[in-house]
């Protein structure tokens, strides 16, 4: 009889422990493009996050307020569309009840999704979005990347100095917030520096376009010293090729949306020797950055692009903020608020894409690098530009 009651008590304890165990997980949502125009971006984010999760869960979980929590990452596909990013964010917040969200990556999705995160009071950190509107007046939204008003001048100064450029042409994606915003900033800064009318051609195209011959004919006819191309890597491959087919032999200057590991697969020899501004340079990295690159390359078979590195940093910032809360209550609303306060209180964070601290808009103050695409297709560090 006594034996039976022991078994009974044991069972009751086990049952009681059951739900308790599941409460010991921390859920983080990922709102990333796994299909659509830029699937490689989603893949990089996911791979990077998986690596981080394996690290922490392998070491017994994340310690918050003296208690260990296992991590659970929920990956949702936003198809690289603005409207899907909104529904994905809502789904992560309402249905999956995540503590915080990483992503979306492109500004095209991050700007509308940021609104949802802010309205629903859930911390969102976008790894890759550089458009100011993503975090503007949204206390719940943060980012791990620098801003376009900073990236624009970096591109202008570098091009003027390196190409000896007096005139420039711009070709951008009209339906992409990121591309359009950066193109406009570039035009302003360049004309302020070199005089009015020095941007000799300012042309746009649609996201699904494959033929750019008419725009390029106009641009090449205006004889610019170089072409600024703030476009996603898939379009860069087509545009650069078509420009060469029309006899253009000049330089291109790119932006951080070029920095995908798929760029060279699609673009090949045409992109070699071109420059773009970005978040980090894989070739020639040191310290923790090199360790990350080596591990990622070993695990997945290719060098991580900047999205992978930024996702790593963004996720680690969120995890640090969760640790800084000093203990979770299990009440979703309260915990989310605690994470927000902890995020805002982080004085400075040492990431693999450089050290950063958040300003009052939730934007990091950090450096940008300009890389050159080498003859072997590697992204080589050329120079680093830091905010003054």
């Amino acid at each position, binding site marked *: 009889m006594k034996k039976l009651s022991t078994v009974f008590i044991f069972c009751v304890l086990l049952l009681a422990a059951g739900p308790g165990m599941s409460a010991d997980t921390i859920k983080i949502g990922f709102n990333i493009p*796994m*299909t*659509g*125009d830029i*699937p*490689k971006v*989603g*893949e990089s984010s996911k791979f990077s996050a998986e690596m981080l999760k394996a690290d922490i869960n392998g070491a017994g979980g994340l310690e918050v307020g003296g208690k260990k929590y296992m991590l659970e990452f929920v990956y949702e596909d936003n198809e690289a569309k603005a409207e899907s990013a909104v529904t994905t964010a809502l789904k992560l917040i309402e249905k999956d009840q995540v503590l915080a969200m990483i992503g979306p990556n492109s500004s095209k999705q991050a700007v509308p999704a940021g609104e949802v995160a802010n309205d629903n009071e859930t911390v969102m950190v976008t790894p890759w979005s550089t458009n100011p509107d993503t975090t503007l007046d949204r206390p719940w939204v943060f980012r791990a990347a620098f801003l376009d008003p900073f990236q624009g001048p970096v591109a202008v100064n570098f091009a003027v100095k390196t190409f000896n450029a007096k005139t420039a042409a711009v070709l951008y994606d*009209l339906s992409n917030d990121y591309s359009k915003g950066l193109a406009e900033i570039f035009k302003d800064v360049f004309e302020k520096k070199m005089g009015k009318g020095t941007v000799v051609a300012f*042309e*746009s*195209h*649609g996201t*699904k376009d*494959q*033929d750019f*011959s*008419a*725009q390029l*004919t*106009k641009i090449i*006819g205006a004889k610019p010293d170089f072409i600024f191309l703030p476009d996603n890597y*898939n379009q860069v*491959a*087509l545009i650069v*090729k078509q420009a*060469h*087919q*029309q*006899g253009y032999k000049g330089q291109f200057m790119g932006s951080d949306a070029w920095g995908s590991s*798929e760029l060279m*697969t*699609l673009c*090949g020899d045409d992109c070699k020797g071109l420059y773009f501004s970005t978040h980090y340079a894989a070739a020639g990295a040191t310290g923790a950055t090199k360790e990350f690159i080596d591990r990622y390359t070993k695990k997945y078979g290719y060098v991580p692009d900047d999205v992978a590195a930024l996702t790593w940093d963004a996720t680690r910032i969120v995890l640090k903020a969760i640790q800084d809360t000093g203990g979770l209550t299990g009440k979703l609303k309260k915990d989310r608020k605690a994470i927000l306060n902890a995020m805002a209180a982080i004085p400075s964070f040492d990431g693999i894409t450089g050290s950063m601290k958040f300003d009052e808009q939730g934007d990091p103050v950090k450096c940008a690098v300009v890389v050159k695409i080498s003859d072997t297709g590697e992204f080589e560090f050329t120079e680093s530009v830091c905010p003054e």
Partner: protein
Amino acid sequence: MIETIIQNLINALQWGSFYALIALGYTMVYGVLTLINFAHGDVFMVGAYIAFFVATFILTVLGLPGWIALALTIPVTMILTSMVGVSLERIAYRPLRRKGAHRLYVVITALMCGLILEHANLAILGASRKAFPSLIVEHVYTVGGVSFTNLKIAVIVTAILSFFILQWIVTQTKVGMAMRAISYDKFAVPLMGIPIDSIIVITFALGSSFAGLAGLLFAMSYPVLEPYMGALIGWKAFIAAVVGGIGDIRGAFLGGFLLGAVEILVVAVFPSTYRDLIAFTVLLIILSLKPTGLFGIAKTTKI
């Protein structure tokens, strides 16, 4: 100034060639069956992928040089793509036709077939883009400020040749005569001993094989492949076919070049932001003046 105009003319001819090649497939099926085969744009996409696999196989596994690979890829792609088109007809459209379903249902079925092709591709091959291998060395020729490549010229010449071949088949051969007869009276034709199903199969095979050819040329010109590449260009080619007068081969051909020219010239003259807005306004005006298209003949029942 004159160079810019000639340069844009070449651009327009090349871009219009793709619309024309795809529009030919739309118009042939419509001409025979009065069916708008909305899956046609995706058959074009499948053609591009077939070309990708065939070319990659020949280049890497067989290790043959580029020009032999191209010579083999063209017929293989056309045959395989025509089989895709015929299978669609056999699996999706013929059962409905047998049951005497209204044409509207067949059109919806075609739309669904297109989506199935897109998403099957996405499921099987994943979302990553494919980079098409270069089969021929592209030379850039510059004559008096106008640049063109051997590939661009090849695309334009192929489109024009395709038109003449199809026009010859439809107007000069027995099969073509049967096709025109079916479009004239679908019910009387079987009574004359014409095998209606075989003629329909031939129509689909012809239309799809030229979509495959377009896919191959497109992949060579714009070597980034993705599952949705056929959707938008397919829709636009359909519009081109309608503007030309759907059902008429000359109409599809001219409509394709017209749409290509309008799109390119709008960008050349106006800010590129207004391209689709102005391009389609022009087409709308053409249609409102001539609702049956440039070569179309008014029929009382159309979808």
